[in-house]
């Protein structure tokens, strides 16, 4: 393969890193330079990815190479660090660098007034590098490295406005939840490595080698099925955390405390999709483990449905989008669980477009109004035309409006679901309906009708205060809107080597019907107000409060962390430390020694005759011992 292609592949990975380094070394007090460096870095990456794509286009079979340096090289253990280019990684790299570049550009406008632009862009660049490390990884350890680094950059970016306690807490929470998941993930990697060969020196982390070794080992029956299932489940812990699947989803809504570009890039388009990417990357392994696949499918399905339900009652614009992200991620995971690697990736791609679009539009709204409560917004369609138009495109794509990208990708998943399991198919279709409902709810409440901002912002603010965002923010919106529309026609599944799925009219019709139902209901309730929202809530009081409290999962975790972990376990350990180890064992020994000293000095009565007596006893003792020898 041509050397320039290899260089291109490396450039995808390294140019954001170079940008990050530049910002750290020279850009700390130069926000403009930082922004420029970051954008240039990621754009370079994107162009390189495009170059590779163009090379591959039409002859995708030819595109499979890797290039690596050895990172750790010990006798018996080699861990390379490099780039693996195949359709899957190239597609993902395109999405990450492409959508990423747009968001980077957008952020230059969005964050223009921020005090810490350099830190922001430095971390964003670091994130891009880390994400690409995952995407282009040649082995599990490199993937894990990227996996942890995206977690770190996510933590830092969520807490970008660290002065806000909620932001600081949210960052912490995100990191922690992912850490818990990564505990299982790491064990999975270790176990997988150990399973690859009984001899340490022949083990490997390398994707392609592992695939070869394990496949033959499995065929030879060298590895017990239970072990493999366990490994699969442990590995699935990684996506469980990173892609925020139930029940480890709690961090994602809180992560909306970060700046909106961060939410768009990290918590919608790319990082959270890394879990899905991982499942696809190791698809050869998972697909051979039916029990694991079932678990993945149901976890995905449950996440899709349960999060969609949560989105119904949420009032914060970004959090609604976050739940929607959860729900869509559930779709993707479910797709992989159903055996649809290409379908999952397809939806990942389209979702990246329209969800980034939605978030950026929401960011645009927020930029103009500093308000996120949909009930305090309203009438934005008039004051922010372009933004609203973009939002509408994204919303329709999300809702699965026929012809838009979301429709196609979701449809393929539904087809897959129907072919496998009726229950999951019903669940997925139901979710599609719910999606349409909450999307429409946002649209009708926040964007149509009359503005409710003026009453709140007083005379100075008012309706006229709401300004459309600057072009630097709008242009990325337009590009993303175009992609959201056209995403279905780019041939993503085909690029991944999937045979073109047949279009099932019945499935499409059902899903469209579900979407329309949701849409209509939302229209009735929130636009026409034929049924008052209050009434609906009262009628469904119990499920409503259940949703309002988010299934009490946050409370349960909170209770676990604060009471069980902190007070009970840590408190007990601290008590043992203080009372048993320091108090009884250590100080006790010291006091015992001192007590013995106090006792012994009592022999020293001060009376000389006692001394003589003890002397005598000593002599007598010596003589007695001598006599008895």
């Amino acid at each position, binding site marked *: 393969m041509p050397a320039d292609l290899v260089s291109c592949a490396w450039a995808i990975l390294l140019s954001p890193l170079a940008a990050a380094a530049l910002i750290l070394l020279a850009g700390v007090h130069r926000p403009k330079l930082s922004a420029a460096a970051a954008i240039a870095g990621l754009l370079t990456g994107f162009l390189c990815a495009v170059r590779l794509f163009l090379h591959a286009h039409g002859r995708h079979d030819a595109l499979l190479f890797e290039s690596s340096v050895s990172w750790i*090289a010990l*006798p018996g253990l080699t861990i390379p660090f490099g780039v693996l280019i195949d359709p899957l990684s190239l597609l993902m790299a395109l999405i990450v660098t492409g959508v990423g570049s747009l968001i980077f550009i957008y952020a230059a406008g969005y964050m223009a007034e921020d005090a810490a632009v350099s830190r922001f862009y430095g971390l964003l660049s670091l994130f891009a590098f880390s994400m690409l490390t995952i995407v282009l990884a040649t082995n599990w350890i490199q993937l894990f490295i990227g996996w942890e680094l995206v977690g770190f950059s996510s933590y830092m970016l969520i807490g970008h406005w660290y002065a806000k306690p909620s932001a600081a807490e949210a960052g912490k929470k995100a990191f922690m939840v992912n850490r818990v998941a990564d505990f299982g993930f790491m064990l999975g990697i270790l176990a997988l490595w150990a399973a690859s060969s009984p001899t340490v020196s022949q083990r490997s982390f390398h994707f392609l080698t592992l695939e070869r070794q394990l496949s033959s080992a499995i065929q030879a029956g060298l590895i017990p099925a239970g072990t493999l299932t366990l490994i699969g489940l442990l590995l699935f812990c990684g996506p469980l955390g990173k892609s925020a699947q139930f029940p480890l989803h709690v961090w994602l809504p809180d992560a909306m405390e970060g700046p909106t570009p961060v939410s768009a890039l990290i918590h919608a388009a790319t990082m959270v999709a890394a879990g899905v990417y991982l499942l696809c990357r190791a698809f050869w392994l998972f697909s051979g483990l039916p029990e694991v696949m079932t678990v993945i499918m149901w976890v995905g399905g449950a996440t899709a449905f349960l999060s969609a339900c949560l989105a119904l009652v949420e009032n914060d614009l970004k959090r609604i989008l976050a739940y929607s992200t959860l729900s869509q991620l559930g779709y993707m995971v479910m797709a992989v669980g159903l055996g649809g690697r290409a379908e999952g990736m397809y939806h990942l791609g389209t979702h990246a477009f329209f969800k980034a679009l939605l978030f950026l539009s929401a960011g645009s709204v927020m930029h103009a109004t500093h308000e996120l409560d949909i009930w305090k917004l309203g009438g934005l369609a008039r004051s922010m035309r372009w933004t609203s138009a973009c939002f509408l495109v994204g919303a329709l794509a999300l809702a699965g409006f026929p012809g838009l990208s979301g429709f196609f990708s979701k449809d393929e998943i539904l087809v897959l679901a129907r072919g496998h399991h009726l229950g999951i198919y019903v669940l997925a279709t139901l979710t599609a309906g719910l999606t349409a409902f909450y999307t429409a709810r946002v649209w009708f409440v926040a964007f149509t009708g009359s503005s409710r901002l003026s009453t709140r912002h007083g005379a100075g603010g008012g309706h006229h205060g709401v300004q459309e965002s600057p072009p630097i923010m709008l242009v990325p919106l337009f590009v993303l809107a175009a992609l959201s529309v056209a995403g279905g026609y780019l041939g993503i599944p085909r690029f991944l080597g999937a045979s073109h799925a047949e279009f099932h009219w019945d499935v499409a019709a059902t899903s469209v019907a579900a979407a329309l139902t949701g849409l209509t209901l939302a229209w009735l309730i929130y636009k026409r107000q034929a049924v008052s929202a209050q009434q609906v809530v009262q009628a469904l009081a119990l499920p409503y409060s259940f949703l309002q409290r988010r299934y009490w999962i946050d409370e349960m975790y909170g209770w676990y962390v604060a009471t069980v*972990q902190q007070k009970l376990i840590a408190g007990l350990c601290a008590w043992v430390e203080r009372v048993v180890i320091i108090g009884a064992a250590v100080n006790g020994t010291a006091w015992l020694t001192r007590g013995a000293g106090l006792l012994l000095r009592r022999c020293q009565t001060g009376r000389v005759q006692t001394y003589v007596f003890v002397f005598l006893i000593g002599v007598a003792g010596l003589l007695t011992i001598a006599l008895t020898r």
Partner: protein
Amino acid sequence: MPIPLSGLILAAPALGALALMVVPNRRHAFVRRIAVATTSVSLAGAIGAMVTYHRASGGYQHELAVPWIRSLGIGLHLGMDGISVVLVLLHALCAFTGVLISYAIKERVKEYYLFYLLLITGVFGVFLSLDLFFFYFFYEMAVIPMYPLIGIWGSDVKERGIVRFSKEYAAMKLTIYLTLGAVVALTGLLWLYAASGARTFDLVTLQQRFAGTPLDPSLQRAIFPLLAVGFGVIAPMWPLHSWSPIGHAAAPSAVSMLHAGVLMKLGSYAIIRLAVTLLPEGAAVWLPWLASLCVMNIIYGGFVAMAQKDLKLIIGYSSSSHMGYVLLGVACLTPLALDGAVMLMFAHGLMTALAFALIGHVYDQTHTRWLPDLGGLAHQIPFIAGCSVAAAMASSGLPGFANFVAELLVFLGGWDRYPVQIACGVFGVVITAVYMLRVVRGTFFGESKRQFSHARDAATPFARLPYVVLILALFVTGSWPKPMLSLIDASVRPLIERVAPGRGRPAGEPITVLISTPVSVEVR
């Protein structure tokens, strides 16, 4: 005769201490300059040793041997193998940065640096000694200066303003506890000496002798626990750890740096260098027990750290938790795990030194280490805040820092031998993240507090130097671990092969290429 590097590294701080004895009390600047100069020399020597150590030949290099007490077979035998080179470098880094951090000391400066340099000398001596007598000699010499250093320049450990452990208590407990451990180990060493019949304290000679005529296994089994427990105290092995967090908390920052950063490594180093090397049969019997104790270290220590609210106590307990990984790596006794353990000694040492230096700065500026009282300091001291995030992340094993590589190797190397313990170890990483993030969150994030508005950042390049040096060292070794790993591995493998034949045999050629060019393959 050219002085070998080992002699240079050891002599520099010793001469510095001697020089300080004759410098007038009041010339603080001169005193500091002497300390900086001597530790710089050692640092240069350590880097030199790291660069010039010949990996392919392995073994002890840069040797210096001076007969000392011929009638007992004692000689001042200095030398470094890959393991000691790494630890000497660690100590040199911590000592150098510690001396810089010590600029904050304003009282009794000369005495302070005198004790500090003695401490430094002692620790270098232990890492460089290849003679049991001098090993112990320097070991105990390193322990004693801690007493005045903590007692005079330390601070009480307070809880909500009330003294919970006075610095006198902390100093005394540390000194007595460590001495107790040391003398138990000494008994074991003397027993070993007497039982060997070789009439030599020379480690290399003893190794060769035992290779030919191994010590009676029952004796090995009897002596091993003496060494393991004796040195385990400083390691610190659960449940003998309680001197350490309180000692760290009460000591002045620069002393905590050396103490947690380097002193604790003396224990695990001694267990590797002496107990395991000389008593393989004993090791085979006792190491599984050690592996289980390590789990207590990791998990229990982590949870205790979680319950603390004094910053230094948190880091103190986290150190005793993290040293569990080191001991676990030792207990596994496989090449990878031991590579990891040694690397972790290095990584954890730098990380902890960094953490204590940072806490020292925070304490100097706010006069409190009580977590609930702190908050929002990133507004006033952003540089320190940034470094703290780096330290917290290094501690939580974020890739890019050496801790990750080291822990990964321990996990990989130990997986086949103690999967349950390793799994617990992996879980320990989660616990670490809990309290480390809490520290960062509680100290630096949140709204700015008015009472800290006077806090000053480390603004000048000179003030930033120690932090930058430590972070850079962690980062470079963590993202490009090959040079260090090849160094460690060159010594670890022969060691394991000697102790557990068959386990350390390399599968391929030793890796000597440190910078590799990308290799591209087309995969069909």
